[in-house]
């Protein structure tokens, strides 16, 4: 048992090490550095570029840079962001809560809606309503997510003015309870745009798991004991049908973060996705590397949480831990 845990910790450490290395290698795939002259911007002279190059250590051989990068990263120092002129850690710390709120809400919506709808679909099987909702979820999971965000922005936000188009709150808006409502109002659209496609995937997964569990022997056994239908559903079917969904849940943090890159851009949400895309644009490598690393670590943690949830739902796995 202890060996197993050690192994798991070792795996996690190896994973983090690989993420760190991958970030560096991907960013530095091509030679060069972020400091180069720009045609449109006479402010960026070759002299300036040279100074910056030295200041940020890009004049060193790439191997040395890698060593610096790794040792600094493990000391928790993510470097200085030249595009924002602030420490990378600070930039990330200010963006992380916003992304956390968005992604957690979106995943909350996705799993709540997905599990409820999917469980209902799987339990009810063939009714026109089930078939219709199944079509809707198929379409939702097939439309590119960025287009869902675009349509959400065009319709409900801009054309009908139901929702604000940007930011996390109304600047200088109300405080207290009204302030909370205002934040929810801002959160609703991006979270839905991000969450609904995932909800569709979850619903389909849940529905098929439910259809399988519905025919399971132990469900029949429960019925043979004279249990009410609702109880059979809740107590016996749902929990076991959750297992494939939970298996899948760990990966969804990565999907949601991926989606957040575009949703945050469109809705001016001050989060990580937007930060990283801006940083890629500015070739702010320390910021990109830090952002990707944090995103990847979030995914790793998310996967672990999903794993714990899976253990909760599957006593057999718990025993093996």
């Amino acid at each position, binding site marked *: 048992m202890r060996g197993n845990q050690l192994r798991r910790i070792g795996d996690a450490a190896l994973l983090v090490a690989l993420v760190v290395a991958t970030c560096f290698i991907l960013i530095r795939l091509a030679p060069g550095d972020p400091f180069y002259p720009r045609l449109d911007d006479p402010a960026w002279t070759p002299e300036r570029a040279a100074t910056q190059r030295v200041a940020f250590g890009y004049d060193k051989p790439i191997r040395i840079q890698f060593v610096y990068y790794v040792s600094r990263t493990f000391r928790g120092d993510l470097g200085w962001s030249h595009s924002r002129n602030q420490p990378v850690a600070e930039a990330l710390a200010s963006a992380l809560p916003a992304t956390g709120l968005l992604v957690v809400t979106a995943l909350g919506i996705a799993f709540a809606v997905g599990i409820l709808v999917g469980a209902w679909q799987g339990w009810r099987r063939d009714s026109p309503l089930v078939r219709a909702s199944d079509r809707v979820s198929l379409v939702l999971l097939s439309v590119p997510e960025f287009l869902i965000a675009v349509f959400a922005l065009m319709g409900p936000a801009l054309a009908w003015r139901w929702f604000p188009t940007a930011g996390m709150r109304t600047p200088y808006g109300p405080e207290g309870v009204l302030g909370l409502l205002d934040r929810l109002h801002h959160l609703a659209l991006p979270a839905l745009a991000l969450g609904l496609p995932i909800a569709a995937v979850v619903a389909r997964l849940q529905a098929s798991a439910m259809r399988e569990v519905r025919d399971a022997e132990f469900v029949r056994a429960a*019925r043979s*004991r004279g*249990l009410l239908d609702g*109880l059979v559903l809740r107590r016996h079917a749902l929990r076991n049908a959750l297992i494939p969904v939970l298996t899948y849940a760990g990966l969804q943090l990565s999907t949601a973060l991926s989606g957040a890159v575009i949703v945050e851009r469109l809705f001016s949400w001050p989060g990580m996705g937007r930060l990283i895309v801006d940083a890629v644009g500015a070739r702010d490598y320390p910021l990109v590397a830090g952002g990707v690393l944090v995103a990847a670590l979030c995914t790793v943690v998310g996967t672990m949480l999903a794993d714990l949830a899976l253990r909760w739902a*599957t*006593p057999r796995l718990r025993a093996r831990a």
Partner: protein
Amino acid sequence: MTVTDSILSVRALDVTRPRSAQPALQGVTFAVAPGERIGIVGHSGAGKSTLASALLGLLPRDATLDPASEIHLGDTALHRADAETWRRARGARIALVMQEPMLALNPAMRIGAQVAEAATAHGIARDEADARMLEMLAKVGFGDPRAAARAYAHELSGGMRQRALIAAAMLMRPAVLIADEPTTALDPTIQAQVLDLLGALRDEVGTALLLISHDLPLVAERCDRVLRLEHGRLVEDDHADRVLARHHIRDYPTPSSGPVVPRAAAPPSAVLSVQDLVVRYGDVEAVRGVSFQLARGEALGIVGESGCGKSSVAHAVTRLVAVASGRVTLTPPTASGHAGTLDLLALSREPLRRARRHIQLIPQDAGASLTPHLTAEALVAEGLEVHGLAQGATALARARSLLAELGIGADLARRQAQQLSTGERQRVAIARAIAVEPAVLICDEPLAAVDEATRERIIEALETRRRGGIALVIISHDLPAVRRLAPSAMVMYLGRVVEHGATAEVLVAPQMPYAQALVSAIPTGDRESSRRRIVLHGEVPSPAAPPSGCAFHPRCPHPQKDDRCSRERPALVPIAPDHLAACWKLPLPPSR
């Protein structure tokens, strides 16, 4: 018997399944008196399980009950009842025990909760239900009911799971209990325990028992009346003895009654020799020092319950699992007649691959041993090709003729394995193994899950090969089959051989108490013999932590066992010519 006397009466029960041409059940009519024990037998697909489902109102979605059918449970006309009436009857007045206890228990829910809900579903308060649940768990044989209530299904053994399901079914003291193949998935010694438990509970509560099984002797032993279904129709409804009498000789050979293959005089040299074989999986020692020798044309049966290490022996000898220690030598006959001995465990990859030609395995669940996307003939021809015995069309032709011998026609031979039935696949697997003409053929449960006709064909084919000089190892818990095929036999318990000798001795008059219990656990259909049955208590211990001394001592029914049994391990010693056994209390007087 009239309807009013009966607790359950069924009239003209018709169930149709629109997707299949034939009705699942047709005009089934019978009645059950209170407390009566009724056996329902028939081949798979005869409609036994559909009948059980229909009686519980749990027919699968694609099946429909004909409106003219009648099901009366006491004075309730269930066929006219609404869903709520059905629900109230289920679990309270008519209950079900299903075949696969692992599948029938919710893996994510504690045992206690699942048992207790049989009561809460019928309006019993939580506390009361829990009390009843604990009481019932104790009654079905859980030593510590509270601990059992907290357990999950995967933490229990198969027998205990089935006991838990029985507890749930009997909790409301139903008038009718339907047990659908309740012991098919269990080991023989556990089977007897569970059936005894069912019988005892029935006697106590007065529940009518509907025992569904494919095993006529088993049903005949335990029931008053037997109903036999064929293609959805009730074809026989008679006293158990009379039904058994009509079918006994032809279909159901028993260990003590069937023919026994005589043993040839000890041959001079062994083809296969196994010495002190040990196999470990992690901490578990699955095989703990097994030795045997096998000569040309000889056959050895290995019997024992699941987990005793029989399959591990097969896999170790064929080097499909790593061997911890021991020695396995193979002396294949060569063209010149001279025997070159191969140290199987020392062979490197390529020599081993070539040596495999001489030692072939028909694995357990032979159906799964065929690569699904390849055709039957290709699979059989493959062995010929990779060992250079024949190529291309020649190989295919030989494969086809071999398959034909086993009753697989040219049509079937061209099908992919996944398109064949279980029995057909079983035969293809056998053809595949014998095609390369091995010196040794190891069959792991060759007769599991095949119908009568196939069974005969397989036995015949194996018998022919043996007579042709192949040495056979038959691993099975089908004792009658072993008796027919193998002149010598070996009983294993927890990784060790406990009795070994001529089949006529070992499987007819076993000496070691475990072997005795094992042999006696096989249903014969004879109610008298069932009274003499040795029913073991307790579960098979985990191979990871076998008991000290004689591993069997905690379950041993022998009246004279002493603490030597728990301290020292008895060696396998000769107790008679050509008969070895491992027991401190031997030689013993013959048990019968």
